Structures are given as C-alpha cells and as structure tokens.
C-alpha cells in the first residue's frame, strides 16, 4: 500500500514539526493572483498557490430573479474538477467534492453580502443580472478551497457589468461599470494532520489530512461561513483556535493581495 506508507511518512514529518518545503505550520505557499487573465470574461483571476493552479472566470447574463427575491440579482458558483488537474478527477457530472467546493465558496461570497444583489436588478420580478462564477481547477496540488475562494473574490473584483443595447443584446465593448463589491471574504482552512493544525497543505500532505475546518472571515472580528470536513473531530477549543488562525491569515491575505 504505497498511499498508506506515504501518509505515515507525512504524519511522522508533521509530528517532528517539519514540512516538505520547510514552511512553518501556519505559513502559506507563495500566492500569486493574476487578474484579467481571460479577455472574454467579464472578470477573471488566475490563482497560483504553490503548484495549485486555479482559473476563476465571471460571466454576466440577463436572467429572471428568484420568486422570493424579485429585486435581487442572482449569484451562481460552479466548480469544475476536470481530469486535466489530476489523475484522480474524472469528467462527467459534478462529484460531491466539486459540489462542496463550489458551495463553500458560494456561501462565503453570498453570506458576506460582498455583492450588492439589489444593484443587479433591472426590472423587479422580471429582469436581473445573473453573476456566474466558474472555478476551473487546472492543477491540483492541494488546498483547493482556499485557492478557489481567493480566486473567486479576485475575479469578482475584476468584473465589469456589460451595457444593454435597446434590443436587449449585450454590449461588451468598453465596459466601464464595475461590479459593486463591498467585502472581501477570504476562506482559510485549518487541516489536522497527526493532531497538529496545519495550513495550506500540498497534495502529499493533504493525503494525510484527518479533518479540516474552513473559516471564511470578512475582517478582524467577523466571520461569514464555516465548513467542517473529514472524519477527525475538533474539540470546541480547537474550533476557537482555528477561528483565530483563520482571522489572522485572512487579514494577511486581504492586506497583501487586496490592499484592504
């Protein structure tokens, strides 16, 4: 069992306080965000976190609002874990991992009220903007949730709203109006390996993860979403510690990469 030997090796390393690239447990790999990567998208961002590569694109379309929120635009988040990114991914209908990934990112953006959905209403009950955020994973080297969350908000910040012509068609030339974004929610996932709390594992480290807790923070004290995954439990004290680490790291990312 190669995988089992591999996970034991990782666990022993973590127990000894070491990581593959000599990082500390709370250090992220190098993070790069390239905004405006795709010209034809209303907004986009290529995120590179170590060797994890994710391209997030935002497209806008005219649609109908939901009956229970006639004055609000619609947000849709979708994630593609295609076979290009890993031999473990298969094409076909979305599997539970990609559904969870998309929903965790979605919750962070939606619940933080980062998008002013009312500003996306054109005719109440009839015509609103639908914002489609597509997370395209190109290379999986671990920690897809955090990288996707950062990519999604970066792409949204990059997004512009097309003009509508008289006949209802869209004019994407010289888009000037920026999509209104008022918050920068950042997800930070605490992974438990050999009982220790580790941030931003690469794929090899991820194979040894026993449990994880994603905390999406908005600023130094407010949270807007959380998601626990994996089988290993967290004591209440560990949850509080995870929240503190996430708030701290989220703040660092906002400051360094979003100037907030």
């Amino acid at each position: 069992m190669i995988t089992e030997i591999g996970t034991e090796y990782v666990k022993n390393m973590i127990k000894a306080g070491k990581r593959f690239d000599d990082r500390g447990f709370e250090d992220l790999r190098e993070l790069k965000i390239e905004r405006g990567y795709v010209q034809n998208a209303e907004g986009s961002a290529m995120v590179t976190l170590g060797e994890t590569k994710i391209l997030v694109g935002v497209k806008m379309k005219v649609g109908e609002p939901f009956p229970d929120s006639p004055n609000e635009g619609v947000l849709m988040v979708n994630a593609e874990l295609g076979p290009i990114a890993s031999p473990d991914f298969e094409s076909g209908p979305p599997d539970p991992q990609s559904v969870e990934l998309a929903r965790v990112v979605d919750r962070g953006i939606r619940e933080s009220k980062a998008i002013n959905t009312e500003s996306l209403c054109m005719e109440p009950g009839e015509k609103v903007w639908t914002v489609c955020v597509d997370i395209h994973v190109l290379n999986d080297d671990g920690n897809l949730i955090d990288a996707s969350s950062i990519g999604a908000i970066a792409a949204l910040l990059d997004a512009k709203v097309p003009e509508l012509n008289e006949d209802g068609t869209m004019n994407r030339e010289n888009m000037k109006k920026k999509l209104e974004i008022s918050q920068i929610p950042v997800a930070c996932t605490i992974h438990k390996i050999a009982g220790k709390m580790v941030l931003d594992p690469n794929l090899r480290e991820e194979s040894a993860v026993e449990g994880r807790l994603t905390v999406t923070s908005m600023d130094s004290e407010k949270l807007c979403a959380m998601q626990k995954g994996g089988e290993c439990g967290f004591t209440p004290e560990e949850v509080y510690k995870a929240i503190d680490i996430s708030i701290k790291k989220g703040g660092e990312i906002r400051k360094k990469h979003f100037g907030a």
Partner: protein
Amino acid sequence: MSVKQEKLIVNGKRPDGRKLDEMREIEAKAGVIERADGSGFFRLGNTIAVAAVYGPKELHPKHLLDPVRAYVKCRYNMAPFSTTERIRPGPSRRSTEISKVIKSALSSVLFLEEYPETGIEIFIEVLQADASTRCVGLNAASIALADAGVPMKDLVASCAAGKVEGQIVLDVAGEEDCEGEVDLPIAYVPRKNEIYLLQMDGIVKKEELKKALDMAIKGCKVIYDKQKQALKCEYKEVKAK
C-alpha cells in the same frame, strides 16, 4: 424582501413560546423500518426524518471496495412533499453536500476497519421539514446505526444554534428560520467532547459564535440522552430479529 413586521423575540420569548436556549419537542424511536438492518425515527418539533441502515454488506459498484475498511454510502433526501414548495425528486447540489458532511460525521464514530471490503449504507429521508433537517436526519441515522448493531464509538447527536434579531438562540425554527441571520448546525459526540459536523452561514462575531457553539453543544447533550432512551426502549425485552 417583505417589510419587517413586529419583533419575533419579545421579552426573551420566541414566536412559539420557547426561551432562547430551549429546544423544540423531541421524539426518538428505533426500529421503524423492518426490512432494514437498523432504523431510526427522529422528530424535532415539526421536522421529521427516518433513517435506515443496511450492512455491513456486499458493495456495488465494486470499484468502491476498500481493502482496509468498510465503505460508507450515505444518502440524505428530502421527500418532494416535505416543504411548502414541492421539491423536485432526485439529488440536488444541496443534498449532495449534506450527504457528504453527514457521511463524514457518522464515519468518524464507526469501527470501519473491522469490516474491510464491505459497504455500510445509510439512507435518510426527511418527511417533513421545518428547519434543521440535516441535524434531525443525522440524529435518526445515528440511532439506525446503533440499531443495526454496527460497532460504534458513541452516538452522534446533532442540533443547530442561530442568531435571530441579534440574539443567539437554540434550534431555530418556523418564522425564525426565514428571518434568521446566522445558522450553525453541528454534530457532537459528548464522550469525546468533539465536533464532527460544523457548518455556518451568516455574519457573526467571534464571541457570538462561541456563545452559539456552546449553546448547540448543550442542545446536543439533550438529544444524545433522547437517542439513548430510544434505543433502551427498543431493547427492553430481547427481541428475536
């Protein structure tokens, strides 16, 4: 958005007369689906779920077989008529995610290594929904696993806390559910003092979250006792199964 009417919480009393840290009425039963190896019923106020467990048994499709541990299959499903608006039958993105988190929470208390190359199947049906369906479903499934005789480290108990009109409350339901600002469902194992499921949505301060988590844990302890009672009740007399 409809215009906000009167306040929901008045003098520490909620719309249905409960106190802030009071849970809805609980009803728990074991052994409600005879064909299954184990089953459970759980009602929390107006939210009702049943769960059945089949296995450990032969697993299909075969490629899921794990040579070192049993494979857990979990399906959370809401009956089409369980809510005001009919739910389209079949899996949705929501139910896929909930099935995944419930599966992880329950797997963590099972001795899966005892049953390599087999499958344990957990089916949860929400029959009537009034908030906290994932918690009620998980509570029923936990009883079902014990009823099926699958070796467990402990029962898993689940309930939710939330924030309504700026106040932290236990077990959000009814009108509060639509107006609620925060929802925090958790699953907790008292014997280990560990949380196995935790989700949160809505804007909340760190201190408020601590208070909500604390309240939800207390709620889980109440549910845990009810689950135990249900099992004791079912096995008061030794039944030939």
